[in-house]
């Protein structure tokens, strides 16, 4: 029988309803898993066992009722760039050490209302900038499949937690691939919803026109369940869209008959690992056997998405991060006699290297004399990319391709080479620039490491990509594969086939 920490939310709910277990039992079992593994994995920056157990006790009787709220008694991890009232929220940065927000993010309020048991705050790259979780000021998270490797980033903590049974579900954020890339690296389901689908109120801002909160889960049905809870208009976020939220879970399909899938040609070009390519091509064949009509489609400007992203995202970050100046919250240098030195030295002491780099790139791209050549040009490229997606969606219901060019890389492999690190996001950033939803679903193992299939949808059509991912998942065994317990660091294990 599957252990409690490895059950999906759907399975856990069924057991609660039958009275076979209780939220307190499940939460205790998850904390035992956390105790056993955290020293190796470091998925969390903060946990509150007492609060979680008290909350579990509160939902104890309710979970047996038919009208129990959708996440009653389900253990959930929250990425540390999402505000939780009274709990530390550091964004993986020294500059926010000790910061305890005076309010909950809207998604956290919605989780609580839905009965979720929030276990704690999960690790991430500092201010969600990175691709490996190595940029956390509090130390990296490790990949549950192989401790020598990164879990991906920036939502490496919440994703590793879900993969390793340290949470049933998790919330991450995705600005350029930060949910989908770690989901692919850790063998779980991760979705970036349409820009505007989920309120960003209480999500610490990195790049406001690209950031989006989304679900991380061990099944597509669970991801749909969590999306349902967090989606919808929020008066506190004027960019959250007033678009109806369908009952995603009720409509999940197992057949793909009549679904037109576009295979993005440019995502299979140079740089894609042969093993990953083979796994993704096999996955597309499976979709075809499930009834989908699959045909190649070209997005000629796709290769320009990454350079455009690395202008737009740092530009927005340079402005958003101006607030960390040692005045309203967070770290303040103890050594400054005037205001400018207070700002500059506080930021020197509080920010890590990648955050400094991005602030400087953004400041450069927005500065007088460079604005038009860099920032404005990148915004025009963003239009090209949007238009190409729109054209593709005239012919197709969803687009498919790999999530990442390789499987999980080794810790330390790319930390000193920012550009190489950025290239890890090459297939994920185009969606953020276009505002479209995308999901990563496990589609194979290469050299013992997970590979993800990316399914991309029209704006606000999360249902179709959930359907494609669900049909694929139900037809394949990959989502049932869990990391080997206590996966030791590989020494000579061969990479990719």
């Amino acid at each position, binding site marked *: 029988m599957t252990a409690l920490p490895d059950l999906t939310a759907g399975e856990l709910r069924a057991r609660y309803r039958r009275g076979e277990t209780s939220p307190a039992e499940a939460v205790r079992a998850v904390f035992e898993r956390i105790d056993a593994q955290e020293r190796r994995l470091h998925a969390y920056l903060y946990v509150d066992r007492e609060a979680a157990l008290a909350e579990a006790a509160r939902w104890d009787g309710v979970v047996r009722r038919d009208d129990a709220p959708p996440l009653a008694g389900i253990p959930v991890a929250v990425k540390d760039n999402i505000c939780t009232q009274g709990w530390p929220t550091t964004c993986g940065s020294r500059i926010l050490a000790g910061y*305890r927000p005076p309010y909950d993010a809207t998604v956290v309020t919605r989780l609580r209302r839905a009965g979720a048991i929030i276990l704690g705050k999960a690790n991430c790259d500092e201010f969600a900038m990175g691709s490996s979780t190595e940029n956390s000021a509090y130390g990296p998270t490790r990949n549950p499949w192989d401790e020598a490797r990164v879990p991906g980033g920036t939502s490496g903590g919440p994703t590793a937690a879900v993969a390793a049974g340290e949470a049933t579900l998790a919330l991450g954020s995705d600005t350029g691939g930060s949910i989908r890339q770690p989901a692919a690296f850790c063998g779980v389901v991760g979705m970036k919803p349409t820009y505007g689908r989920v309120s960003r109120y209480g999500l610490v801002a990195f790049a406001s*026109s690209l950031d989006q909160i989304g679900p991380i889960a061990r099944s597509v049905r669970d991801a749909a369940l969590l999306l349902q809870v967090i989606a919808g208009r929020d008066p506190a976020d004027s960019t959250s869209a007033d678009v109806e939220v369908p009952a995603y879970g009720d409509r999940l399909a197992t057949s793909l008959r009549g679904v037109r899938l576009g295979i993005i040609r440019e995502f299979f070009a140079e740089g894609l690992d042969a093993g990953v390519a083979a796994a993704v091509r096999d996955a597309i064949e499976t979709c075809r056997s499930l009834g989908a009509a699959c045909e190649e489609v070209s997005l000629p400007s796709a290769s*320009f998405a990454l350079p455009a992203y690395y202008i737009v995202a740092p530009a927005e970050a340079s402005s958003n991060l101006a607030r960390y100046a040692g005045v309203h919250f967070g770290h303040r240098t103890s050594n400054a006699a005037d205001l400018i*030195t207070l700002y500059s030295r506080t*930021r020197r002491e509080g920010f890590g290297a990648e955050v400094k780099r991005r602030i400087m*790139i953004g400041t450069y791209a927005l500065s007088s004399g460079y604005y038009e050549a860099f920032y404005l040009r990148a915004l025009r*490229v963003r*239009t090209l990319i949007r238009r190409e997606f729109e054209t593709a969606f005239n012919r197709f219901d969803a687009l498919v391709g790999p999530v990442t060019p390789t499987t999980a890389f080794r810790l330390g492999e790319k930390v000193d080479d920012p550009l190489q690190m950025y290239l890890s996001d090459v297939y994920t950033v185009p969606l953020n620039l276009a505002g479209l939803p995308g999901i990563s679903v496990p589609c194979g193992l290469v050299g013992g490491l997970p590979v993800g299939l990316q399914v991309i949808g029209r704006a606000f059509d999360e249902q179709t990509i959930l359907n494609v991912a669900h049909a694929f998942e139900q037809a394949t065994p990959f989502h049932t594969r869990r990391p080997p317990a206590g996966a030791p660091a590989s020494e000579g294990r061969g990479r990719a086939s």
Partner: protein
Amino acid sequence: MIDDRTVARVARLSRLELSPEELDRFRHQLGEILEYVQRLNALDLAGVPPTAHVLPMANVMRDDEVRPSLTQEAALANAPAVENGYFVVPPVIAEDSPE
């Protein structure tokens, strides 16, 4: 493609104090990144409007009504230095400065 002076100028605009080692490393790394993003120069963008934001929305208005909000105490709770309900910072204008 960028020199020490440019890095120092950008750092100043960014309100970031840099060590000499950081200055050196960032000159190299920023140069590489900026060279990479200039691939965009290969594209013909004549007549293509910019997209700053993907949602087709204009201003979002709400009624101008007083609503519950954070208390002063809660708003100041995370500040590194507070006095009489204010944030405290070092002098912006020195006390002994002339007129």
